[in-house]
């Protein structure tokens, strides 16, 4: 059964009639063609589908779309502004902190969420905690830490 979904996605007001049975993940991908958020497991275990909702991190695969109607949602597509990479994206790019790249969108959102919420530079332990729900089978974890540590060094100076 369809209903009008309204909310804000990547800064844009969205209103669309969709099936109430949709998860946020499929709403983003199949209805809005925002393909950057990835399908990894559809059971909330891998974080490939992670997005930011009202400044908090959620797995969109186990979030019904209508559970977050009226919310402010940010996906990987909303990270860069006016074609400029977000500092987190630039840091990961510069350090080469990924291989197949499939976990990257979810990883970026997890990092952004943690860094925005923190009032201080994240310690290595805190970075680990921030991405503890993001699986990377290619094993790029330590490079992610390196990238963020470097980014925070730059911010400090």
């Amino acid at each position: 059964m369809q209903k009008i979904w309204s909310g804000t996605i990547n800064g844009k007001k969205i209103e669309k009639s969709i099936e109430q049975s949709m998860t946020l993940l499929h709403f983003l991908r199949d209805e809005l063609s925002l393909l950057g958020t990835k399908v990894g497991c559809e059971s909330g275990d891998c974080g490939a589908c992670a997005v930011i909702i009202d400044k908090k991190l959620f797995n969109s695969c186990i979030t019904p779309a209508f559970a977050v109607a009226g919310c402010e949602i940010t996906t990987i597509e909303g990270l860069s502004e006016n074609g400029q990479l977000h500092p987190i994206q630039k840091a990961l790019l510069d350090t080469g902190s990924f291989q197949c790249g499939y976990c990257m969108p979810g990883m970026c959102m997890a990092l952004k969420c943690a860094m925005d919420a923190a009032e201080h530079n994240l310690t290595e332990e805190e970075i680990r905690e921030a991405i503890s729900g993001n699986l990377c089978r290619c094993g790029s974890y330590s490079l992610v830490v390196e990238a963020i540590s470097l980014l925070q060094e730059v911010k400090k100076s």
Partner: protein
Amino acid sequence: MWNEFESPQSVQDALVILEKHGGNARVMGGGTDLLMQLKSKRQTVECLVSTGKIASMKEIRLEGEKLVIGGAACAMQVQKDPLVRQYVPMLAQACAKLGAPQIRNAATLAGNVVTAKPAADSAVALTASDAVLEILGPTPRSIPLIDAYAGLMQSAVDSTKEMVVAIEIPLPTGRYGSHFARIASRRAAALPILNAAAALCLDDDGNITKSRVVVGGVGPSPQRLYTLEDMLQGQRGTIDLIEQVCGASPDHVHPRDSIRSSAAARKGLLPGLLKKCLLSSFEMATKKEG
């Protein structure tokens, strides 16, 4: 899965929707377990009724001698709440161990209890806190958490008709300490092999006026080890006593073999786990002033 999705803004509205669907709707907290259960059972409900927009159910507050945690409060909220950390630290610890940040942002304590997993971390800690579920629906009632399980993976709460609007925890009195710990095969996002929560209250002379010892992973629901509590009750709190009581623990549990761990292994691990919980609780309690 589900056909309709409602996000009522009050408990009353939620109950009306449940009634309207006559048993074919279901309450949803964060959905982190519920959605997967529906998927694996190939079940479709007519309507999911989310508690996510019911503001009153997201509050954590003191009410007289009770700490009241709204049924829609998520694990992350509970983990960080200053009242929880002050009065029931083991609950904050348990919530912090749940899944990963994005799971903790969604999973509600009420949801964790109602999905009736045998060893949900927060349920173990809540049992040790003497938590009581406030249930509204056709038969409004309060039930202690330990009575919330009707069998393996079966809740005493019927989510098609009623909802857990709050979890009430009596504020501990005296010198109180608590601790939650778990053993899993991996640091993050893993089902526990064994978990436990313990709490101790001491009087000014250092005698144990109250204790709670709860274990998950040795039965269909969190198990309160009454015999061990009896062994502690009224005794002078000492490290030796605690070690003795923990040493006796394997005789009072009846776990089954599972793919993650054998029954014998769980019994073998139990004393060490309980020691961690009881010794930490004891340390916390002795530091408090009467």
